[in-house]
């Protein structure tokens, strides 16, 4: 990410930010509400075009879990994972993600009920599994521990541990335990 600036409604959110992630990196982004953490993550994922500057993601797959991204509510947890696996071109990854969710204490992955009926915490776990499906080379997590119990939070720690073996992790959080998982830290400040 090189010299990235972003304005929204005339307000500067990010100004001249540059950062590089290499395999094995876990970068934690912290900052007050409105400091631009989620904006930075959306730009890094390629879901938002910055006002100036640019972000390159190499050739691998990007996994992204954030509050503004939800599973398809009409599909079951398993169908969500299967569909993502198919469009990512990794049929085995769906089965792998289901095994991973089972091991993570989420047997509801096999229920035929739509994702809309899952609890907020279960949906968060499903989103983490969807982001990690196919072992992306860049995993971007925005407040991954929100709505999760202690077991769920340990799942986040495991996920980050596994993801750093395959690539880099960019994590936005204000939770000190989650922040401690990072090797590099970036603190954003509210500019305007």
């Amino acid at each position, binding site marked *: 990410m090189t010299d990235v600036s972003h304005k929204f409604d005339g307000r500067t959110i990010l100004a001249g930010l540059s950062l590089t992630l290499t395999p094995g990196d876990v970068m934690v982004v912290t900052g007050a509400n409105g400091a631009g953490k989620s904006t930075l993550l959306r730009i890094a*994922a*390629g*879901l938002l075009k910055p006002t100036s500057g640019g972000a390159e993601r190499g050739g691998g*797959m990007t996994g992204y879990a954030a509050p503004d991204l939800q599973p398809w509510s*009409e*599909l079951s947890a398993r169908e969500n994972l299967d569909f*993502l696996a198919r*469009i990512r071109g990794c049929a085995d990854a769906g089965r792998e993600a289901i095994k991973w969710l089972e091991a993570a204490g989420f047997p509801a992955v096999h229920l035929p009920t739509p994702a809309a009926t899952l609890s907020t915490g279960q949906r968060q776990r499903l989103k983490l599994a969807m982001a990690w499906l196919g072992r992306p080379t860049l995993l971007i997590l925005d407040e991954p521990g929100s709505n999760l119990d202690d077991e769920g939070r340990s799942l986040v720690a495991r996920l980050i541990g596994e993801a750093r073996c395959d690539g880099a992790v960019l994590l936005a959080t204000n939770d000190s335990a989650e922040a401690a998982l990072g090797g590099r830290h970036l603190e954003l400040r509210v500019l305007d």
Partner: protein
Amino acid sequence: MSSASWISRTLAILAKDARAELRTRYALNAVLLFALSSLVAVSMSLAGARPGPDMLAAFLWILMVFAAMAGLPRSFVHEEERQTSGWLKLSASPAMVYCGKFAFNLLLILLVELVTVPIFLVLLNVTPVHPAAFCLAIGLGCLGLAAAGTLVAAIVARTQNRGSLFAALALPLLLPVIVTGTIATRESLSPGTGAVAWGEVRVLLSYAVVVFTGGLLLFEFVWND
């Protein structure tokens, strides 16, 4: 990526949309209800009168276009409203998404026409003189409506006044298919050689191919912007 893999991933998007639609009937109910209630209202207001082929063709195409306008924007609007479009952006190429959504929209319109056109023929006591040209005009019209509607739906999905904006943007783009389709349908219902109808059918096919190709090329900019 092999073409088999590309097609399989595109079909996965179609299957996902079809599965979600079958469970919610989000678009299907709205479109079918509009089409059927319009048909019944017109057939009752005619009170036994026999309108000519020009009036019948115009009515059928008004029905098709407005039914399409009620259903087509849903494919992308639904993804934006439910905050799911990000998964598609991160996981599939824009061309796959456009083709998958186009296939779903085409399936939706064809399904609606499969129900409403026979009812139209029965209620208004219409017998096409050139049935092959009539069916092709409807089928290729659906193809054009789906191609143009898919692109416009993607454009309006992230805007505020989606409904009115969709109609305002889609109508000029659909004008050629409406005019040509109406003429082709009128001629297929009229006695004669049907030469005019077949000529218009060729125009409908060309329109569908051009708009689909244009949509495929432009979609990446709309989708990633």
